[in-house]
């Protein structure tokens, strides 16, 4: 076998968060002779998995059942989940969580030493494993620290992947910008797993970290992979105004109330059941996220929310839980409120409003994480398998990145072992991609545009919030569509002030902006063409679910830059759970 160069590997993972690290470990365990590498634009422990709070779902207690977890997930997703995928997911979830336990994850415990589980929104039983309210943080650090013991795992920290290199429908590797030096490197890889997370940063008010710009999803999209169910964007009902910091669903699972300006538990008016002093699963505050966020919006239109300098909000009341309980189960919530809102949830209500949290859509993969381009795989929030359908249930995503991270790792390893030598055209492909970066961003330009990255980003944010927010209609989406396409064009002419090669964050921000613009266009087009309401996608001009026409995944295919994508539909896999009305309360 001929070696391509120093930067050659069998499996390259793009993104060093939960899914990426789990995939890396899976490759190393599948075959220790394989050369596996993780390239990420940030150090692994900075990845956004770190911010997940509430927990990770998996059936382990004897009073729970696999069947119920499957049903909760499918009904929570408004029947848009692929049921074979959900079944595989729920079956493998406990094993993956146990592996995390064996790797040292500091799960919260029962008095007798068993792993403890808590309630979560949309789940009929207690099945959410947690590590206080820093579950994502502990899972990410456990995975990162564990990954250090696998010698074959090589890391490219702070390498920003700019293009997938694909020759004749087969993946050959990537082109990546080494941020510290500004040098573009070709990393040859037989298979590539994209684990770069979602693209919540297309929206102005989001729990998502600055890095969540959907880079991997855009890479796949440009390489000809379809993006699935892009119109489904989850609003989490409880974020802090201004910062958008997430106040975990666990606050409500532990018994928190949502109150409007009259201190009234308004969810009872929205088909979410009767208010009880104790939390009841699948009712009221423990309803699914889409329904709670929509209830807020309705309440706002009725003028029953509270006005604040950073938008309307309602109150999350934890005061009745008591200081000890809050300190034990929700220490981070208290810490965040004290720090960023200067209020103490032990004695005061927390101001909260819905905030963009998760993108259900993403790279169209099969149940093993494979895409339609040979050698390209995806897992985690970047991928859409789909187990989340039209609305993800809280605590399913942390488990998802374990289950499908591992699956994608195994599949990509098997593929890499079988695949032939690299294409002789590899260097030419890399040179072309490098030239594109040079030409678009680095070369000095005669025509200087007045636009700035921040200016275009702000316009994009406005369009996404107003045009493709919690409620949408044809008119708002049309406007957003035209503007975003125009912004794509303008973004190509933004002049960068920073001409340095050393850690040029303006250059990476420009590439991120282009990625967000392309993905936004896919979100808008998919939303425009789905003329029904389902889960998180609510069309005021088409308020009903339409199973006849839209019991289907939307697939967005990229056309030319600056034009809207082509939308096709693929059937949803239904096995044992025929579509029904979604009932809570």
């Amino acid at each position, binding site marked *: 076998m001929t070696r391509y160069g120093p930067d050659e590997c069998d499996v390259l993972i793009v993104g060093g968060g939960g899914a990426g690290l789990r995939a890396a470990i899976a490759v190393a365990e599948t075959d220790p002779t394989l050369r596996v590498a993780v390239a990420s634009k940030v150090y692994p422990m900075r990845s956004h998995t770190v911010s997940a709070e509430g927990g990770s779902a998996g059936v382990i207690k004897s009073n729970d059942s696999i069947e119920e977890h499957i049903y909760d997930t499918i009904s929570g997703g408004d029947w848009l989940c692929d049921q074979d995928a959900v079944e595989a997911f729920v079956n493998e979830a406990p094993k993956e969580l146990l592996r995390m336990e064996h790797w040292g994850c500091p799960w919260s415990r029962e008095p007798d030493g068993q792993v403890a589980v808590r309630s979560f929104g949309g789940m009929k039983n207690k099945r959410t494993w947690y590590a206080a309210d820093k579950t994502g943080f502990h899972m990410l650090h456990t995975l990162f620290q564990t990954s250090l013991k696998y010698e074959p795992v090589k890391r490219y920290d702070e390498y920003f992947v700019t293009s997938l290199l694909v020759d004749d429908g087969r993946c050959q590797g990537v082109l990546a910008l080494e941020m510290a030096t500004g*040098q573009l490197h070709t990393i040859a890889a037989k298979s590539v797993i994209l684990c770069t997370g979602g693209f919540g940063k297309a929206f102005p008010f989001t729990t998502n970290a600055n890095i969540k710009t959907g880079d991997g999803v855009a890479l796949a999209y440009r390489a000809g992979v379809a993006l699935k169910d892009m119109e489904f964007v989850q609003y989490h009902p409880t974020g802090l105004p201004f910062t958008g910091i997430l106040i975990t669903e666990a606050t409500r699972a532990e018994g928190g109330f949502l109150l409007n300006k009259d201190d009234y538990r308004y969810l009872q008016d929205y088909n979410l059941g009767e208010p009880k002093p104790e939390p009841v699963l699948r009712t009221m505050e423990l309803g699914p996220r889409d329904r709670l966020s929509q209830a807020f919006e309705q309440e706002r239109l009725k003028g029953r929310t509270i006005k604040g300098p950073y938008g309307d909000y309602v109150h999350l009341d934890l005061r009745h839980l008591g200081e000890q309980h809050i300190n034990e189960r929700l220490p981070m919530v208290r810490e965040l409120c004290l720090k960023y809102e200067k209020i103490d949830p032990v004695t005061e209500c927390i101001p909260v409003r819905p905030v963009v949290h998760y993108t259900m859509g993403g790279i169209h993969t099969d149940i093993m994480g494979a895409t339609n381009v040979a050698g390209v795989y995806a897992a985690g929030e970047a991928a859409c398998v789909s187990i989340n359908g039209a609305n993800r249930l809280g605590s399913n995503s942390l488990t998802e990145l374990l289950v499908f991270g591992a699956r994608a790792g195994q599949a990509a390893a098997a593929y890499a072992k079988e695949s032939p030598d690299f294409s002789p055209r590899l260097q030419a492909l890399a040179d072309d991609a490098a030239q594109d970066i040079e030409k678009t961003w680095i070369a000095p330009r005669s025509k200087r545009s007045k636009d700035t990255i921040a200016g275009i980003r702000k316009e994009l944010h406005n369009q996404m919030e107003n045009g493709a927010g919690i409620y949408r209609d044809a008119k708002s989406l049309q406007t957003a569509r035209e503007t975003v396409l125009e912004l794509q064009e303008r973004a190509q002419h933004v002049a960068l002030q920073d001409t340095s*090669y*050393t*850690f040029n964050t303006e250059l990476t921000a420009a590439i991120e902006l282009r990625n967000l613009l392309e993905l936004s266009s896919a979100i808008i087009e998919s939303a425009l063409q789905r003329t029904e309401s389902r889960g998180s996608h609510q069309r005021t001009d088409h308020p009903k679910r339409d199973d006849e026409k839209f019991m289907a995944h939307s697939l967005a295919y990229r056309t030319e830059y600056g034009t809207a994508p082509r939308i096709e539909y693929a059937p949803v896999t239904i096995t044992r759970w025929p579509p029904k009305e979604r009932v809570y309360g």
Partner: protein
Amino acid sequence: MESQTTYKRFRPAPYTPKMQLSWWWQKPTYFAYIMRELTAVFVAAYAVILLLTLRALSAGEAAWEAWTTTLQSPLSIGFHVVALLFAVYHSITWFMAAPTAIVLNVKGKPVPAKTLILAHVVIWIVCSAAIAGILLTR
């Protein structure tokens, strides 16, 4: 003071700020630390005085008289006062640091840091009183 290499394209040239000699002067906590380290000098000096005292004792009455006269000089008394202050400072910082190294659980609950410090101080006072008692009551 900074050290660095010259820049070439794709070869970053990081600079590394070097610590100044006066670093311990820049933060009260650093200063307190250096003072604590300095107590060692006084403790050692006092050990030397103790040795000299023993030598004077073994060298006969004249030597002993001369030595005790020296000890009573204002300079010597001044040194003893300063040495005592440093010794007390050393003891206090030591007791304050004790809880960082000791994790005690009584009936499943961790003993609070304050209790641990207090326990150390009490033992210290008791020991000092005992020694003083032996020396002063003849």
